[in-house]
């Protein structure tokens, strides 16, 4: 089994009193398409900054291609997107691509990059004059200029219309099919559901959930049971929202919960069971973590599992979900 392209072991990063990343252990093997989810301020950006060498961990280990990421040579196989607001406004599109290409031994020719991302006609435009969507496409294109083995995409489709988003997804899938490794953060859970094989949810600097898309779906309270009742006994729901006689119960096993409800003998009406989207499930996980254990709430260690490239199967079967 080849070494992981990215490895974090107990990586912690503090800014003064604030702990942005708290003992994160995570390994990304070659060829994986990993989706990184978490609310704003969860530590996603800090994690990417550690991996791309922008910041060093306060403690713990961070490695990129087996080296410390702050060594320039470690980043030779890395492709990243700048934030689209960060393009130098006075430089022309072609010049921006040329500057990035100049750092790699075997870059994709600039004309080819521009063509591939639909920017061919804009080569001579200053980036300050591009639309938001065009800037975003240029920003994403820059990640692929150096023929990277690993691409970090931070919110790649924010601000893109539906067509442009799907074009970009195709580009990411094509890169991944060719053997490329991708770590993707997104506000659009739909995007992670559409692309990622593995999902890591971070919140408050910790890994909350780490598993395949299916595992995460089944492990988080992904079933929503709605029912009207005057009063209900404790049915073992992960999370219960009560509004008058309306009860909304979140659980990973709706069958068991409904069985308990019936056996309890409590009168109820309008029973409704629905499968939650990843987005809803994810919100439930982070909200539950907030409510139950304000401090030191996660007891499970966030040991990540690596996936063997041969089988694509995780080495352990249950994702760790801290409750």
């Amino acid at each position, binding site marked *: 089994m080849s070494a992981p*392209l990215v490895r974090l072991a107990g990586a912690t990063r503090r800014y003064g009193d604030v702990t942005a990343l708290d003992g994160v252990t995570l390994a990304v093997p070659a060829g994986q398409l990993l989706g990184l989810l978490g609310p704003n301020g969860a530590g996603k950006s800090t994690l990417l900054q550690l991996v791309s060498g922008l910041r060093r961990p306060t403690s713990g280990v961070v490695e990129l291609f087996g080296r410390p990421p702050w060594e320039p*040579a470690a980043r*030779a196989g890395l492709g*990243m997107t700048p934030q689209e607001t*960060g393009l*130098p406004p006075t430089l022309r599109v072609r010049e921006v691509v040329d500057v990035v290409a*100049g*750092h790699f031994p075997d870059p994709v020719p600039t004309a080819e990059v521009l063509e591939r991302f639909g920017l061919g006609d804009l080569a001579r435009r200053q980036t300050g004059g591009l639309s938001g969507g065009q800037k975003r496409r240029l920003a994403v294109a820059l990640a692929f200029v150096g*023929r990277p083995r690993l691409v970090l995409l931070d919110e790649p489709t924010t601000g893109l219309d539906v067509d442009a988003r799907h074009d970009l997804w195709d580009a990411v899938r094509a890169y991944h099919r060719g*053997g490329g490794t991708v770590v993707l953060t997104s506000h659009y859970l739909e995007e992670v559901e559409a692309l990622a094989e593995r999902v890591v949810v971070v919140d408050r600097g910790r890994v909350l959930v780490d598993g395949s898309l299916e595992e995460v779906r089944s492990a988080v309270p992904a079933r929503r049971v709605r029912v009207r009742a005057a009063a209900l006994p404790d049915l073992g729901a992960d999370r219960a929202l009560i509004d008058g006689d309306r009860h909304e119960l979140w659980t990973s096993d709706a069958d068991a919960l409904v069985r308990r409800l019936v056996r309890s003998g409590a009168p109820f009406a309008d029973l409704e069971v629905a499968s939650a989207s990843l987005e809803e499930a994810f919100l439930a996980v982070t909200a539950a973590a907030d409510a139950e254990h304000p401090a030191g709430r996660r007891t499970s260690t966030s040991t990540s599992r690596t996936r063997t490239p041969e089988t694509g199967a995780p080495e352990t079967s249950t994702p760790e979900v801290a409750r």
Partner: protein
Amino acid sequence: MISTPTTATASEVTPARGGRTGGLRLTALHTRAQLLETVRVPIAVIGTVVFPTLTMLFFVVPQPFADDPAQATAATAQISLFAVMSVCLFTYGVGVAEDRALPWDSYLRTLPVGAGPRLAGRLLNGLAFALVSLVPLVVVAWLLTAAALPADRLVLTAGALAVAALPMLGLGLWIGYGMSTKAALAVAQVLLLPLAFGGGLFLPPEMFPGWLDAVSTWLPTRAGRDLVVSATTGADLPGTTWPVLAVWTLLTAVLAVRAYRRDEGRRFR
């Protein structure tokens, strides 16, 4: 094809150095990009170029000593140092602080390039600016005053300006790498005029009262000024000049290197 990732293992990753991505090539790449960025905002160029020339027009040209070759030459040398100094404090100080706050600078730091080429690009960029800002100054001195620089003193003067600029360079880089944009702008502005005036860059120190002259002796600008004036006119160099310059250069270099090492771009996000 957007890319063709190889299936190499991590141990096969080769560092991007030598050949097409050598240090010199990267330096040229960054210098060119930075110059393009700056030159395409003409007002920034004009500001740097015009201010020292205006100072020359107001502080030197109308004065009686503008007709005296030695004094006019010394005055031109002083203002030249002022021009170089403002480039150091603003291009390096404020400019670097502004760059650090931009996401593009963070992005460049994720590319396989070390600090060297980016810093070298910045230094060359500042050098180009300093030279450009000296051109109108010299033209004004030549046309409107009696200043004259013998050809054999040209190289010596350029060298003196470069040496006198060293503590200013350290100061600028310390401000740029150590401070936020707002703080950098304020500190650069607060330092520029007292240092320039106190160092005798506007009015010659001969016109200073005794106490100011005493304080002035220990300023890096005064030592730099004396060095440049001596290079242009052959005037005697005070014994304090070299030690004062050396101490300030060392001190500001240490501050700049420390700020640079601690820099991680923007602090939060």
